[in-house]
């Protein structure tokens, strides 16, 4: 019977797990070590700017363990969504990290690099030929919106990974990839059940999150021809039918259907069976083929921000912060107008943390906080303007009167200068897919050999 064991050490490359859990998983003799290295989870900045979220040292440390262990076992490694956002630079960044490790360790490897960043021209061309379709919630898309994106990536499925593994790659480094494809590729290549491969990959994509002790880290997924099994390598952690099925809910809008490139996985009738030693077996996942689509992610610049934080303990303000903020805003608007600032050239928000800044609605009647942090956020087309506007606010936030006929108050700034330049901000622009006849049409693959003996 075809069988494939996948070790998923990290929920994200750079998050780490204990050495003990890592070595216990390696002792289970996996066929591959696979991990995801990115996400849109932390917002549009990383894709918009093409930047990586985790520290290089943390990424290198996690990658080094994978490379050293995989080399000893003669098994490959797959890493998806390199550099957090999965742009081409992210793949090259990971190649650089691997090169450094291989030279330090004297390990020679064949690396497959899969690029899926798309130019605005390519996307506009597909838009023009009607091949781009919106996902729910539907956002209108036109060329102007595409052109606002500083980076666009196509989300890879399992096909290019399978191709790379077939071609003997020791390390596969890929641009933006579905969390599941990076894990499902080897079981699919080895002829395991596709339904089980995709479902198992979804369960294990956040590593130890599908166990009783998510912090322990690490998960081992074994897929065969009729189902899959999940086992935690951590000593203090087990899998139960509840932890396994509950993970399908996490960060997933629909708990029954998983849409992957070219397939829809139906887990609604799946059976979760507890096995000895904290293992869980899952069977009866269903799958059906669909036309092939590649999901798009795009983000682009949306101005610059400057922020200021001020603390308040004055009881008069604390009893009714919203009225005070309204009066303060009206006063600031008037001052900005009198200084000649065009109201269309900037916007701002003033939010009382400790009151209703997160919620935005009414607070329970009679609620009086002990102190408040008022956060001013100014947005403008350039940094200089955003900071100038924040500077106009500065004396107002420091001294704005708490009531008529009261002496001038002073509030509590934690910083000097009070203004913090946040730099450029970005927004997500795309929630769409491209219909493709060939999964390889828009991607590029390259193979390089890193010689560990080379200086």
């Amino acid at each position, binding site marked *: 019977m075809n069988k494939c064991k996948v070790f998923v050490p990290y929920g994200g490359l750079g998050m780490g797990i204990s050495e003990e859990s890592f070595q216990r998983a390696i002792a289970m003799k996996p066929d591959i070590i696979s991990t995801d290295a990115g996400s849109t989870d932390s*917002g549009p900045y990383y894709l918009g700017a093409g930047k990586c979220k985790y520290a290089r040292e943390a990424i290198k440390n996690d990658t080094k363990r994978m490379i050293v262990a995989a080399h000893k076992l003669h098994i490959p490694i797959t890493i998806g969504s390199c550099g957090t956002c999965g742009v081409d630079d992210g793949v090259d960044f990971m190649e650089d990290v691997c090169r450094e490790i291989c030279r330090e360790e004297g390990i020679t490897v064949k690396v497959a690099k899969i690029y899926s960043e798309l130019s605005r021209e390519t996307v506009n061309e597909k838009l023009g030929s009607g091949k781009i379709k919106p996902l729910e919630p539907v956002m209108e898309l036109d060329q102007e919106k595409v052109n606002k994106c500083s980076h666009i990536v196509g989300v890879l499925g399992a096909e290019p990974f399978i191709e790379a593994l077939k071609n003997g790659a020791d390390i596969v480094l890929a641009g933006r990839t579905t969390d599941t494809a990076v894990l499902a590729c080897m079981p699919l290549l080895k002829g395991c059940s596709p339904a089980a491969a995709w479902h198992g990959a979804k369960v294990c994509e956040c590593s130890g999150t599908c166990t009783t002790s998510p912090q322990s880290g690490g998960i081992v997924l074994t897929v065969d021809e009729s189902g899959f099994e999940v086992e935690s390598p951590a000593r203090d952690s087990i899998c139960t*039918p*509840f932890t396994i099925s509950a993970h399908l809910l996490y960060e997933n*809008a629909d708990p029954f259907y998983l849409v992957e490139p070219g397939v829809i996985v139906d887990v609604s009738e799946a059976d979760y069976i507890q096995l000895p030693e904290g293992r869980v077996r899952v069977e009866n996942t269903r799958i059906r083929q669909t036309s092939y689509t590649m999901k798009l992610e795009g983000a682009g610049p949306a101005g610059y*921000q400057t922020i200021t934080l001020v603390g308040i303990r004055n009881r008069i303000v604390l009893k009714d912060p919203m009225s005070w903020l309204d009066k303060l805003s009206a006063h600031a608007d008037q001052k900005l107008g009198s200084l000649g600032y065009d109201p269309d050239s900037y916007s701002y*928000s003033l939010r009382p943390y400790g009151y209703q800044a997160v*919620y935005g609605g009414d607070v329970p009647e009679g609620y009086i906080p002990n102190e408040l942090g008022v956060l001013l956020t100014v947005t403008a087309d350039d940094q200089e303007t955003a900071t100038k506007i924040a500077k106009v606010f500065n004396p107002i936030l420091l001294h704005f009167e708490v009531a008529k006929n009261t002496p001038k108050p002073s509030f509590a700034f934690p910083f000097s200068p009070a203004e913090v330049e946040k730099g450029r901000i970005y927004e*997500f622009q795309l929630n769409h897919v491209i219909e493709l006849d060939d999964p390889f049409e828009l991607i590029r693959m390259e193979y390089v050999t890193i010689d560990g003996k080379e200086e």
Partner: protein
Amino acid sequence: MEIFSEVAHYIRSKNAGPFWITIDVFCGDEERYKVLSKSPSLNPEVIARAYKVNPDSVRVFFLPSIHTIKISYPRARPQGSKYERDMHAGQQYVELGNLPV
């Protein structure tokens, strides 16, 4: 009258991609699942009012085998827009927890 957060074992919320928010109500056992899953507050109209979204966009899923109710709805604005209040949507469950059973 009791509210969801007083009856359920645990309620959490999270972004599901940049355009959706999803809330998981782990009831804890069959008894509480039976009570909560029948609550009129799970009507999409009620949830839509609490979250100021279109009722047609609210999706409610029932998972009796793990005594869990799941609610998903699209974000009013994509994640990380200019004046975002909750990047990972991790605090958005509170409104649901405040609804009467």
